[in-house]
C-alpha cells in the first residue's frame, strides 16, 4: 500500500514537471510553470521523506537546510550577466551528486537494506558514475571557461579523438571488471579499485571534452551539459529502481538535447562535432589568420560616426532595429540601450531588437539581459521572424555583436562561420556598428560588414557611446 502511495506521489510529481516545462511556451504562462516545478519537487521530496526506507532524518534535514540557504543566497545575488557561469556550476553539482549516490549504492550493495549484488546492478552503478563524472568535470571546466579563468581557446591536443575513444573504452572495460568482482565481500577488492579508476578517467574525459571546445561554442556546451545532467539522473533512476528519477532525468535530458540541437543548427555546426570536441569539418573555432597583410588591413577604409551625427540620423529614421551581442553584456550597456529605445519609441520610431540564437553565452541569454533592462518582450524578435525586415529598416544598431552579423558566413563556405545563419543587417539603409576597437571577433575573422558603403563605425565603450547618443537626442 505504501509503495502504491509512493508511486502515485511520484506520478503526480512527474505530471507537475511536465506541466512546468509546457508552461514555458510563452511569457504569460511561464511564471506558473516555475510554480508547477516547485510543487512537483515538493511532492517528490515529501513523498520520499515519508518512505520507510529513509531513516537518517537528522542528516538529511541538516543537508536540506544548509543547501536551501546557500541556494537562495546564490540565486538572489547572482547578476544576469553571470547566468552562464552559474548554470554551468549548478550542472556540476548534479554530476557530483550522481557520483556520490553511485558510490553510496556501491557501499550499500549486498548489505543490510541495500540492493542485492548483481552484475546488472553493478553495471548500472558504473554507468551512473560514468555519466555523473563527465558531467561533473565537464561542467567545472565550462564554468571556468565562462568565468574567463581558463582560456576560451580550444585545447586541441594531438590524437585527441583517439584519446577520447580510448578513455571511453577503458571505462567500459573497468565497469566490466567491477561487475565481475561484484560478489566479493572484501571491502578493498579489485572491483572497487576498478570503479575508482574508472571515475577518474571519466572525469578526465569530461574535462578534456570541454577543454577542446572553443569559447564561441559555449552556448552549445552548456546546453549539452544540461542534457547530460538529465541523463545522469535517469541513470541513477535505473540504478535505484526509481521511475521518478528516470522520468525527470529524461525530461531534462531531452530539453538540453533539443537546445543543443537548435544552437548547432544556428551555427551550422554538426552536433557530433561539438560533442566530440571539434571532430569534423569545422574543427573547433581555431582563429583563422586574416587573409590580408597588416598594411592591407589598415588600408581598408571604414566610415566613422559619432554621437551628433548618429543622433541626427536616428531622428530621421522611421524604423530601427538593434542587434545586441555579448559585448553589450560585457559593457553593461543594456540599461543605456533601453533608454535609447524608449526615447526613440516616444518619438514614434519603430524600434525592435533582433536576437540571434547564439548571441551571448547561453541560449536565450540576450533575452534575459534585455528583460532585466526592462525592454518589453514583444519588441524582441528572433532571427527567423526579423531577418526579412532588414531591407525595410532605416537604421540598424549593432552593439557588441560581430560574428552574428558577418556576411562572410553567407559568402564563404570555408571560413570558420561558413554556412551559419546570420542577421542580414547590411540590407538595411544604414548600419551603425558599436565597437571598442577594430579587433576581430571570437571566430578570429575580419568582418566585411565594417567596410560596406552603408556601414558606419562608432568606436568606444558601448555604454558610453549609447549614453552620449541619448544625451544628444534629448537636447
Amino acid at each position, binding site marked *: 500500500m505504501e509503495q502504491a502511495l509512493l508511486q502515485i506521489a511520484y506520478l503526480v510529481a512527474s505530471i507537475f514537471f511536465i506541466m512546468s516545462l509546457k508552461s514555458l511556451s510563452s511569457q504569460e504562462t511561464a511564471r506558473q510553470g*516555475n510554480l508547477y516545478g516547485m510543487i512537483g519537487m515538493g511532492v517528490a521530496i515529501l513523498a520520499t521523506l515519508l518512505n520507510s526506507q*529513509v531513516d537518517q532524518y537528522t542528516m538529511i534535514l541538516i543537508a536540506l537546510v544548509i543547501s536551501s540557504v546557500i541556494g537562495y543566497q546564490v540565486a538572489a545575488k547572482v547578476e544576469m550577466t553571470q547566468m552562464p557561469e552559474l*548554470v554551468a556550476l549548478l550542472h556540476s553539482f548534479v554530476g557530483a551528486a550522481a557520483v556520490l549516490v553511485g*558510490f553510496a549504492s556501491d557501499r550499500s550493495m549486498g548489505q543490510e537494506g541495500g540492493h542485492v549484488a548483481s552484475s*546488472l546492478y553493478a553495471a548500472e552503478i558504473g554507468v551512473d558514475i560514468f555519466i555523473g563524472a563527465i558531467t561533473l568535470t565537464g561542467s567545472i571546466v565550462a564554468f571556468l571557461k565562462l568565468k574567463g579563468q581558463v582560456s576560451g581557446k580550444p585545447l586541441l591536443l594531438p590524437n585527441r579523438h583517439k584519446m577520447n575513444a580510448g578513455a571511453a573504452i577503458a571505462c567500459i572495460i573497468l565497469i566490466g571488471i567491477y561487475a565481475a568482482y561484484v560478489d566479493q565481500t572484501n571491502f578493498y577488492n579489485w572491483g572497487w579499485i576498478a570503479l575508482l579508476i574508472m571515475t577518474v578517467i571519466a572525469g578526465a574525459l569530461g574535462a578534456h571534452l570541454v577543454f577542446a571546445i572553443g569559447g564561441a561554442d559555449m552556448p552549445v556546451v552548456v546546453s549539452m551539459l544540461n542534457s547530460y545532467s538529465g541523463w545522469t539522473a535517469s541513470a541513477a533512476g*535505473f540504478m535505484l529502481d526509481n521511475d521518478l528519477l528516470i522520468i525527470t532525468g529524461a525530461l*531534462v535530458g531531452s530539453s538540453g538535447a*533539443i537546445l543543443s540541437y537548435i544552437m548547432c543548427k544556428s551555427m551550422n555546426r554538426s552536433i557530433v562535432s561539438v560533442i566530440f570536441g571539434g571532430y569534423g569539418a569545422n574543427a573547433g573555432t581555431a582563429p583563422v589568420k586574416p587573409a590580408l597583410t597588416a598594411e592591407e588591413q589598415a588600408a581598408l577604409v571604414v566610415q566613422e560616426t559619432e554621437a551628433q551625427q548618429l543622433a541626427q540620423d536616428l531622428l530621421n529614421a522611421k524604423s530601427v532595429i538593434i542587434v545586441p551581442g555579448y559585448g553589450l553584456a560585457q559593457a553593461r550597456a543594456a540599461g543605456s540601450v533601453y533608454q535609447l529605445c524608449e526615447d526613440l519609441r516616444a518619438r514614434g520610431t519603430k524600434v525592435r531588437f533582433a536576437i540571434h540564437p547564439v548571441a551571448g553565452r547561453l541560449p536565450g541569454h540576450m533575452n534575459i539581459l534585455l528583460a532585466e533592462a526592462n525592454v518589453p518582450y514583444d519588441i524582441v524578435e528572433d532571427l527567423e521572424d526579423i531577418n526579412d525586415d532588414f531591407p525595410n529598416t532605416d537604421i540598424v544598431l549593432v552593439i557588441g555583436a560581430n560574428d552574428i552579423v558577418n556576411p562572410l558566413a553567407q559568402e564563404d563556405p570555408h571560413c570558420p562561420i561558413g554556412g551559419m545563419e546570420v542577421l542580414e543587417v547590411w540590407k538595411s539603409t544604414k548600419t551603425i556598428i558599436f565597437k571598442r576597437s577594430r579587433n576581430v571577433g571570437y571566430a578570429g575573422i575580419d568582418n566585411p560588414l565594417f567596410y560596406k558603403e552603408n556601414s558606419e563605425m562608432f568606436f568606444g565603450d558601448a555604454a558610453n557611446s549609447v549614453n552620449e547618443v541619448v544625451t544628444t537626442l534629448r537636447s
Partner: protein
Amino acid sequence: MRIGVPFETATGEKRVSATPNTVRRLKKRGFDVAIASGAGQQASFSDQAYQEAGADIWEADQIWSESDIVLKVTPPTKEQVEQMQDGSVLMGFLWPKENEELVETLRSKGVTSIAMECVPRISRAQKLDALSSMSNVSGYRAVIEAAYYYGSFFNAQFTAAGRVDQAKVLVIGAGVSGLAAAGAARGLGAKVYAFDVRSAAREQVESMGAEFVEVEFEESGDGDGGYAKVMSDEFIAAEMALFRKLAAEMDIVITTALIPGRPAPKLWLNEALAEMKPGSVVVDLASERGGNCESTVPGETVEVNGVHIVGWTDMPSRLAPTSSQLYGMNLVHYLKDIESGSGEVGFNLKDVVVRSSIITHQKEILWPPPPLSEIDPSSLPKEMQKAKDTTKDASASSTSTKATPVVTAPKTSQKSEEPRSKGLSNKQMTWLGIAILWCLLLVTSDKSSAGESTIIFLNHLTVFALSCFIGWQVIWNVTHALHTPLMSVTNAISGIILVGGMLQAHGTSDSAASILGALAVLLAMINVVGGFAVTQRMLKMFRK
C-alpha cells in the same frame, strides 16, 4: 557597347525601358546609350532630360540597326527584329511561349535575347525581378482604379452630417501585387481582407495590416517542389462558397491570381458577382490572361448589375514614370551582373539567372531551360540544391519572401523548419503505438525470477523511452526568449537526484552510504532552491 532604347510601339504602352536616372547609371558602367527620339515622352521624360544624362538621341531605325544591346519593355515586332545585327542583344518581356514566330526570327538573326519575365525567383536575383517590380505597381494602381469607380470614401468618417462607413476590400491572392494592393488600400483607410490557398501567406498578409481569410478545409495549399497543388473539387466548392458569402459584404474585390503559362483561373464566378451590392467594384489584375472574374472583359471596364468590373491590362503603364524607373533598374542590375568589362557584357550559361532567362543565343534556341539544379548546383543557395524542380515553363521556387503574383505561388522557403508539433504526426503515432505494445508485452510475459530483473530493467527502459518522447514534444514549444529560464528550471528539476541521496541515507549514520547520500542531498538541493529562485527572478523581469 552601345545600348539602344526604342520607342514602345505597342498600343497604349507608355513605359520606356530607360529613364534619365538609369541612363546615368549605365553611362557610369561604361556603356554608350542612345534613346529613340520621343521614347520617354509619355513617361514624362523629355529628349533633353536624356541628353543631359549623357544619352544620344537617335532615329528609331538607327536604334534597331546600330545598337549592340536593345532594351525593350514589351516584345518587339518581327520587322523591328529584322533590322537587328547578328550578335546583338535584346532584353525585355518576351513571352516566348506565345511568340514562337518572334523567337524564330530572333534566332535566325543571331540575336541573343533575354526574357526578363523568366528570371528565376531566387534571393540574389530579387533586384532583377521585373515581374515583381511591375506587380508591385499594378497592385497599387488597382486600388487607385477601384477608388476611382467606387462611390464612397475608403476610410470611415464621422461628420456632422452623419457617418460614412469604412470600405471593405477583399484581395484574392497574396502575392506581390496582392500585398501591394492590401497595403495601398490600408493606406487609404479601408478594412482589408486577403485570401490565399497557401497558409504561409498569413504572416505576410498580417504584416500588411490585413486580415487573412482562408477556407475552412483540412487541405494544405502547399504542394511539392514549391508550387501549390491542384486543389480537390471539395476544396474548390468550399472556396466558391466562401467567395459568395464574402461577395455580399465586400465593397471592393481585387483579384490577382495568375498561373504562369496558363489562362488565369476563374475564381470570382457570376454567382459571386450577383451577390455584390450595386456600386461595388471588382478590379481584375489577371485580365490580360482572361481574368479571374467570369465577367471580365480584358482591356475594358464594364458594368454588370451596378458593379464595375475593371479589366485594364495596362496597370504598370498607367504609372509609366515610376514603372519605367523600376523596370529600368531591373535592367541595370541585370547588365551589371553579366558585365565582362567596362561597358561590355558576356553570357555565362552556367549562371542560373542567365541560363533561365536566355531565349536565343548564337543562332540557337536555348529556351526552355533545364531544371535549376542541373545548371549549376553550386551556384544555388543551399536550400535550393536539394529542391526538386517540377517545372518546365514557370519560374522556380523562391527563397525570398516576396511571393509571386500567383495564388498557387511557390513555397517561400525550402528550409526544414523546426517541428513545432501541435499534434501527433503519423511517425509519432507509430512510435507511441510501439511503446504501448511493448508495455503490454512486458505485462504478460514470463515472470520467472531469472528473467525478473531483466523485466524490471525493460520496464524502466520503457518508462525512459516514453519520457524522452514526452520531453521531445513539450520542449519544442518553448519560445526562444525563454531558453535561459528553461535551462535554470530543468537544472532545478534535475536536482531530483536528491531523492536518490535520501534513499541511500539509511542504516547507521556513519556508514559510508549515509554520509555519501547526505552529501548528495546537500549538493542537489542547492540546485533545486537556487534553480527555482533564479528562474523566478528571471521570469519576473519579462514585461510587455
